[in-house]
C-alpha cells in the first residue's frame, strides 16, 4: 500500500481525510495491525512544547525620518543583534535584559510582541551620510512593523537526555533545578508525541515541510544545528510568521541562575505514505529510550548512568541504583497534546495541507565537538606541593611554615595524608587576636576541593563562587595531592 501527498491533499479538500494524533495511532496499530492502519489513516499529528534556547526572531521596523542605521538597539531593554541592514535585527531568546536579567529576556519580548503588547525600541547610531539620525526611542506593536519572523536554528530535538546531579550541591541548569545526591531527575521531549521520533528516518520531514509553529503556520527550513541523526538526536531549523502566532504557544522562560529561554510549540503532520510510516508513527513511550546523564560532572562528556524509557520518565519516578527518584518534565505534555489536536483539527477542517519536502534531512551528519587550538589547562598542570600540618600540630609551627614558605594556606591532614581541613594566614591572625591556642579550634573543616583532572576554569569558578583563594587537590580517597591557589591562576 502506498499513498501520495496529492492523494492525501485531495482527501483533505474533500473532507474525508483520516487524521489521528501520534498517541491515538499507537492504539489503532495495536488493534488493527499495521496494514489496516496504513490504509485507514492518512495523517498522524505530533506535537511538542518545551524550552528551546535556540529560538529568536528577525524583525524589520521600517525606516524613520530622518533615517537611522542601528549600531546598538534594545527591545524592552534586551539587546538585539543588529549586524544586518539598517533597521533589521535578530532578537535571541536567551539574551537577558540589561535591567532585570534572568527575569526577562528575548523570549519574553517575543511573547509580549505576539500578545500584542507595546514594545519599547531604543537604538543609536554612529550616523552616516545616508543614515544621519543618531538616536531613536519609540514604542511599537507587532502590527506596526513590517516583518516579524520566528527563526529558530535548532528546535524539535528528536529526544533529549534525562539530567541528574551526583554532586553535593543544588545545580541550577538549563535542565532546571537539580537536587544534590541524585535528589531528582529532569527530562525533556514529548516522547510518543515528539515529531522527529515519529519519522526517525526523516522520510517526510525536510526543507519546506509545513508545520504548526507557535500557534501559527511555519516551515522546516533545514536540518537544525547540532543535528545528530546517527544517534537519534536529530533537530530542525524552523521559521514562521510571528504575526499569525499565539502567545499561548510561545512563552518566555527563566531558568534560575542559568538565564532566559522560550517555550516553543511545534507540531508536525506525518503523512502515512506507506506501511513503514504507519509502524514508525505507532512508536510508544515504552519503546523510546534516552540516557540518564550526570550533570554533577561539569564536563562535555558526562557519565551516562542508564537508559530509561519515556514511559518510566512519564510515570514521575525513575529507578536509580535501586532508589526511586522523582522526575519532572521540562516540556509540557499537556500543551504537546493540545498542539497535536489543533493540527488534527486544522487538517480535518481543510485549513492545512501537506507538502513533500524539497529536500530531506541528512541521516549522516556528525555532531562535532569544538576544535580548541589554545591549550586547555588542568589542575594537574598548575597545582603545587601543599604545605601540610597534622591535626594536632602546634599553631606556632603552622605560623612558622606560613612565614617560611611565604604562603597563605596550610592543609591539615591526618597521619595517613587524608584531608582534615585548611588553615589560612588570616585564621592564624584571628587566633592570636582571639587568644586561641588550639589548631583544632581554628581550622576550616568543611573544605571546598578540586581534583587532578579538573579544568582550571572549573577550579577558578569554585574559588570565585565560594569567595576563597585556594583549593586542596585530593584524590578519590580524599588523600591530599597538592594545592592550587589563586596565584597560580593569574
Amino acid at each position, binding site marked *: 500500500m502506498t499513498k501520495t501527498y496529492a492523494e492525501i491533499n485531495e482527501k483533505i479538500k474533500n473532507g474525508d481525510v483520516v487524521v489521528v494524533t501520534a498517541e491515538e495511532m499507537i492504539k489503532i496499530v495495536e488493534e488493527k495491525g499495521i496494514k489496516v492502519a496504513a490504509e485507514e489513516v492518512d495523517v498522524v499529528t505530533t506535537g511538542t512544547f518545551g524550552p528551546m534556547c535556540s529560538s529568536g526572531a528577525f524583525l524589520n521596523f521600517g525606516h524613520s525620518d530622518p533615517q537611522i542605521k542601528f549600531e546598538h538597539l534594545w527591545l524592552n531593554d534586551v539587546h538585539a543583534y543588529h549586524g544586518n541592514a539598517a533597521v533589521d535585527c535578530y532578537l535571541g531568546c536567551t539574551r537577558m535584559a540589561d535591567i532585570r536579567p534572568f527575569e526577562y529576556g528575548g523570549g519574553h519580548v517575543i511573547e509580549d510582541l505576539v500578545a500584542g503588547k507595546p514594545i519599547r525600541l531604543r537604538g543609536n547610531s554612529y550616523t552616516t551620510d545616508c543614515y544621519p539620525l543618531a538616536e531613536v526611542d519609540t514604542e511599537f506593536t507587532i502590527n506596526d512593523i513590517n516583518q516579524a519572523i520566528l527563526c529558530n536554528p535548532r528546535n524539535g530535538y528528536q529526544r533529549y537526555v534525562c539530567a541528574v546531579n551526583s554532586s553535593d550541591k543544588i545545580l541550577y541548569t538549563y535542565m532546571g533545578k537539580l537536587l544534590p545526591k541524585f535528589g531528582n531527575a529532569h527530562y525533556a521531549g514529548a516522547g510518543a508525541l515528539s515529531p522527529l521520533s515519529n519519522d526517525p528516518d526523516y522520510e517526510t520531514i525536510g526543507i519546506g515541510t509545513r508545520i504548526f509553529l507557535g500557534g501559527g503556520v511555519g516551515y522546516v527550513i533545514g536540518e537544525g544545528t547540532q543535528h545528530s541523526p546517527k544517534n537519534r538526536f536529530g533537530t530542525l531549523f524552523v521559521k514562521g510568521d510571528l504575526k499569525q502566532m499565539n502567545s499561548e504557544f510561545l512563552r518566555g522562560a527563566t531558568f534560575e541562575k542559568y538565564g532566559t529561554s522560550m517555550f516553543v510549540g511545534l507540531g508536525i503532520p506525518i503523512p502515512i505514505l506507506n506501511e513503514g510510516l504507519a509502524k514508525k508513527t505507532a512508536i510508544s513511550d515504552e519503546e523510546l529510550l534516552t540516557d540518564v546523564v550526570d550533570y554533577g560532572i561539569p564536563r562535555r562528556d558526562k557519565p551516562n548512568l542508564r537508559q530509561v524509557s519515556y514511559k518510566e520518565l512519564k510515570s514521575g519516578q525513575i529507578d536509580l541504583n535501586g532508589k526511586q527518584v522523582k522526575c519532572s518534565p*521540562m516540556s509540557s505534555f499537556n500543551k504537546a497534546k493540545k498542539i497535536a489536536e489543533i493540527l488534527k483539527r486544522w487538517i480535518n477542517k481543510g485549513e492545512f495541507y501537506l507538502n513533500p519536502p524539497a529536500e530531506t534531512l541528512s541521516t549522516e551528519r556528525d555532531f562535532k565537538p569544538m576544535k580548541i587550538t589554545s591549550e586547555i589547562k588542568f589542575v594537574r598542570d598548575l597545582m603545587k606541593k601543599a604545605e601540610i600540618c597534622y591535626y594536632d600540630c602546634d599553631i606556632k609551627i603552622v605560623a612558622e611554615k606560613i612565614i617560611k614558605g611565604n604562603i597563605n594556606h596550610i592543609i591539615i591532614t591526618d597521619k595517613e595524608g587524608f584531608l582534615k581541613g585548611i588553615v589560612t594566614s588570616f585564621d592564624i591572625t584571628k587566633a592570636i587576636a582571639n587568644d586561641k591556642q588550639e589548631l583544632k579550634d581554628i581550622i576550616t573543616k568543611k573544605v571546598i576541593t578540586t581534583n587532578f583532572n579538573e579544568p582550571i576554569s572549573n577550579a577558578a569558578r569554585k574559588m570565585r563562587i565560594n569567595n576563597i583563594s585556594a583549593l586542596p587537590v585530593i584524590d578519590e580517597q580524599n588523600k591530599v595531592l597538592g594545592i592550587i591557589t589563586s596565584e597560580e591562576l593569574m
Partner: protein
Amino acid sequence: MTIINVTLPMRIIKGLSDYSNIVNEVLKQEISFNILKFSTDSSGIKMLLDVPEDKIKDITKSLKKSNIIVNKKGRVSIDKELCVNCGACVSLCPTEALCLNSDFELVFSEELCIGCNLCLDSCPRYAIKED
C-alpha cells in the same frame, strides 16, 4: 490537620521568652501539632504550624490575645495564567503537593504543602509565589 502561619510582630518582641510563648499558647489547647517552619526576620517571629482543623478557632482566639497574628497563608500559590503545565516543579516537591494529573496538568494540593519553598525558584514562568 490544617496549616496556619503565625507571626509575633517585631515591634512587640521583647526577648527570647517570646519564642516559647508562641508554642506555649498553642500547647494550652492540649493538642498535638507540627511545627513546619520557624524563622525570625524583620517582620517578626514566624511559625508555620500544622494544627487540628477543629481547634483552629480556639487556637486563633488564644494566640490573638497575645498579639500573635494568625493567617492561613505562608506557603505557596500557583498563578494558573502564568503556568504552562511543564511540571518542572514536580520533582522538587518532597510531598505530593505538586503533581501532574492524567492530562498532564499541574495540580496543587495546598493541604499537602509543607512550605519548604524548594519549588519557588524551579518555575521557569515565575508562576509559583510565596503566599
